[in-house]
């Protein structure tokens, strides 16, 4: 009877396609909004996740997230280094500066000052140049988006200069840094160099990056650092989640995206649900005839579920295809770079679609089950 169910489903092309497209657009909208939401909300953690050498971030105890920093005192670095279980610890400066291009164009930039000796914290994904060129005087590495902003239309190349705090900044490399939340250009320089690029501050030590000795966990060493120094120590992952939670609680972003997602969910449930229900109601007489002929309720339920699954799977596949095409086409667009369609979102939407078609079929199944087959004798 499966082919009967299939043919009943596709016979009314208009209704069939409206069912498919309702689910496809709901899936697309959900995938699109949730993925963009996740992409934006993970951006505050970009600079944390880009640091792969260190496992522990040490900071002022009152620090809420990575974009608001109260500098430590220089000797805090040595206090961290002295904690048993810390293999090494290096300084990291993170702050905002203003960079100006030769043509006068200027913009706030995220300035990261990495340890002069080890270059821990320097970008690992280089498009042009090498992190070791940071050793040159006034050297800095700029991210691709920043280069495109300051030097639009020009090929990626080293040797260009910017000006920060009335000092020359020599571009020695171009990185593929993860997009920051504010979409500012990201500049990496040596810790000692950063001092010259920003206005004089009494303390520059934003963070201490540390590595636990082999055999000790990040959590354990972090606790030791906190106990010994009174500072706050977070693993990369914890610190990333701190940033995520901060923006979740303190901005309207979740509300805005949440509303869109809810609308997509409601429309995506109601429209296909109602259309599928109407489709069943219109076929009620035929289902009655099938019941009279001797088709069991179980078989009819299987037919309805098959129809629902076909509609759900096709709509979902189409929706995911549209979402994938959307993100693929915007992947290289600088403002939206790094925003992708995570598999977890795809899996989650599959569950939602399953729920939607399940709900729609339940309503239809209920109607068919209670249907008296004697209805077929009523003209």
């Amino acid at each position, binding site marked *: *009877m499966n082919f009967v169910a299939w043919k009943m489903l596709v016979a009314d092309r208009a209704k069939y396609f409206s069912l498919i497209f309702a689910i496809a657009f709901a899936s697309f909208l959900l995938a699109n909004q949730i993925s963009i939401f996740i992409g934006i909300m993970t951006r505050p953690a970009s600079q944390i996740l880009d640091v792969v050498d260190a496992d522990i971030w040490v900071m002022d105890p009152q620090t809420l997230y990575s974009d608001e920093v109260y500098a430590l005192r220089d000797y805090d670095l040595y206090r961290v280094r002295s904690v048993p279980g810390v293999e090494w610890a290096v300084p990291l400066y993170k702050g905002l500066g203003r960079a100006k291009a030769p043509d006068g164009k200027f913009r706030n930039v995220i300035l990261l000052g990495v340890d002069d000796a080890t270059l821990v914290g320097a970008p690992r994904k280089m498009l042009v140049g090498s992190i070791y060129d940071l050793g040159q005087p006034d050297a800095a590495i700029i991210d691709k988006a920043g280069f495109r902003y300051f030097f639009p239309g020009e090929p990626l190349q080293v040797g260009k200069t910017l000006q920060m705090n009335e000092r020359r900044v020599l571009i020695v490399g171009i990185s593929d840094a993860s997009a920051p939340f504010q979409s500012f250009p990201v500049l990496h320089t040596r810790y000692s160099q950063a001092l010259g690029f920003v206005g004089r501050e009494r303390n520059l030590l934003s963070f201490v990056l540390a590595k636990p000795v082999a055999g000790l966990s990040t959590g354990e060493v972090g606790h030791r650092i906190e106990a010994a120094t009174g500072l706050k120590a977070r693993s990369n992952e914890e610190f990333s989640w701190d940033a995520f939670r901060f923006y979740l609680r303190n901005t309207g972003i979740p509300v805005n995206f949440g509303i869109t997602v809810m609308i997509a969910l409601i429309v995506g449930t109601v429209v296909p649900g109602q259309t599928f229900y109407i489709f069943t109601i219109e076929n009620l007489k*035929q289902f009655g*005839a099938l019941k009279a002929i001797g088709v069991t309720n179980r078989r009819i339920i299987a037919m309805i579920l098959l129809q629902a699954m076909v509609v759900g799977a096709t709509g979902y596949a189409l929706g995911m295809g549209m979402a994938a095409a959307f993100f693929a086409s915007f992947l290289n667009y600088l403002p939206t770079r790094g925003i992708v369609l995570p598999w977890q979102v795809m899996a989650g939407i599959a569950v939602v679609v399953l729920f939607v078609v399940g709900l729609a079929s339940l309503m239809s199944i209920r109607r068919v089950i209670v249907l008296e087959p004697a209805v077929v004798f009523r003209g």
Partner: protein
Amino acid sequence: MVADGIAVFSRDVTKVFGRGDTQVHALRGIDLEIRLGELTMLVGPSGSGKTTLLSVITGLLDATSGELVVLGERPTALSPEELILFRRENLGFVFQQYNLIPALTAAENVAVPLLAGGVKRQQAVARGKELLATLGMAHRAHALPSELSGGEQQRVALARALVHEPRLIVCDEPTSALDGRTGHAVMELLSATAVRPDRAVIIVTHDARIFDFADQIAHMDDGRIVSLEENRKNGALTNGLVAASETWSLAEPDARSYTTTGD
């Protein structure tokens, strides 16, 4: 004990819908025997209980009381699953509005009872085509119901009722949607193909033009069988009681035997 050769045996069967003040007595004690090898018509005005009786006989509705035996089985004694299986194996249906599935071709529609019984699609559709060919519909086997005339659709419905070789065929107003000529042709086909010694056919109808095809006519009114007429060998019907209405009066009434029930 039901005698051999009896397809449907009904004794004092009642059907009541609703409760209390809203009760409707659709059947008020039906006594009826329908024999294998015969074509029985249930006739009467709207609301007389014909369709309800047909639904009770086919197990689509439960009788409220009385004794009913269909092809040796008591429908009320069967579980819902057994009843469905019983219908699937033993009963063929022809509906007033054909109730063909619009998405399926004629041959596929005919194959539905076989598909419901688990026959593979190719086999079932092939059998459907064969049967359509015997009904003169081979050239329309791939047509959708919307592409068929009323007479053709009813022939497809007839083929669907016959395809799984049931022992009881029930037809609800099979000619009411057809013009006289087409209705006559459908009835000729039905009596030629459906009536067999091991099979009974029951037809609910208002259509006096087809009464001549019946071996037995049960006139119903107000939930009762008010007269039962039997066919003479020459094809004309005998008259039991006074015909219920002009519409159903027969050309050559000839009283021979009748049964009344429920009064």
